[in-house]
């Protein structure tokens, strides 16, 4: 099975749950369980929240979400044209946050890594950030 979709939304925090649901709805083609669905949605939620809070801060901007299904591989890219990440290795570290004053946990990337098979980060300061999340779905529901 092959399919894809692209979603563009302004970086308002109220669009975070919309984006997450749209990706979840798209994923239903692979017929996940609710737990699998929640894992992907949680990971997407972290990446979109990062684009809103860190990428754009208080400045407006657009978030692009590209999702693709190739056989049983699910992929989603979350792309912003915000401020970018200076040190990607540091950003990946559990508990690292550049906004401790905002009570951020610094666990966003750890959550993405825990819930997905692959997490790729491409980022350039002043240009933006592209997060790619991938997960393989093996589940063949029995009896249909």
């Amino acid at each position, binding site marked *: 099975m092959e399919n894809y979709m692209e979603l563009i939304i302004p970086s308002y925090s109220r669009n975070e749950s919309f984006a*997450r*649901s749209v990706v979840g709805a798209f994923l*239903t083609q692979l017929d*996940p369980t*609710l737990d699998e669905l929640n894992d992907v949605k949680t990971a997407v939620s972290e990446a979109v929240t990062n684009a809103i809070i860190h990428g754009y801060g208080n400045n407006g901007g657009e978030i692009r979400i590209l999702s693709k299904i190739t056989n049983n591989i699910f992929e989603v890219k979350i792309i912003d044209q915000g401020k970018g990440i200076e040190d990607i290795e540091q950003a990946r570290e559990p508990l690292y946050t550049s906004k401790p004053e905002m009570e*951020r946990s610094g666990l966003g990337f750890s*959550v993405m890594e825990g819930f997905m098979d692959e997490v790729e980060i491409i980022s350039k300061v002043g240009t933006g950030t592209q997060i790619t999340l991938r997960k393989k779905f093996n589940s063949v529901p029995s*009896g*249909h």
Partner: protein
Amino acid sequence: IGEIRRYLRDNNPIRVSRSLRDVAYKALQVRDTLINRFNREPTVSEIAKELEIEREEVVFALDAIQEPVSLFEPIYH
């Protein structure tokens, strides 16, 4: 029939926010039922089929009862 429909529309407008919550709670009940029936986690399509709605609608309904916050964020703010 048109009259009745209009009357119902004007006087008994069920808001989507309410209806989504109802669907979500039903979906969670159906999930439990199906776990017992299949002895495994049901898939989203199986839940949708049981509720006679589209699988995408299960997702949007369940999200309606979830707080739109990042996992480790404080829930107040």
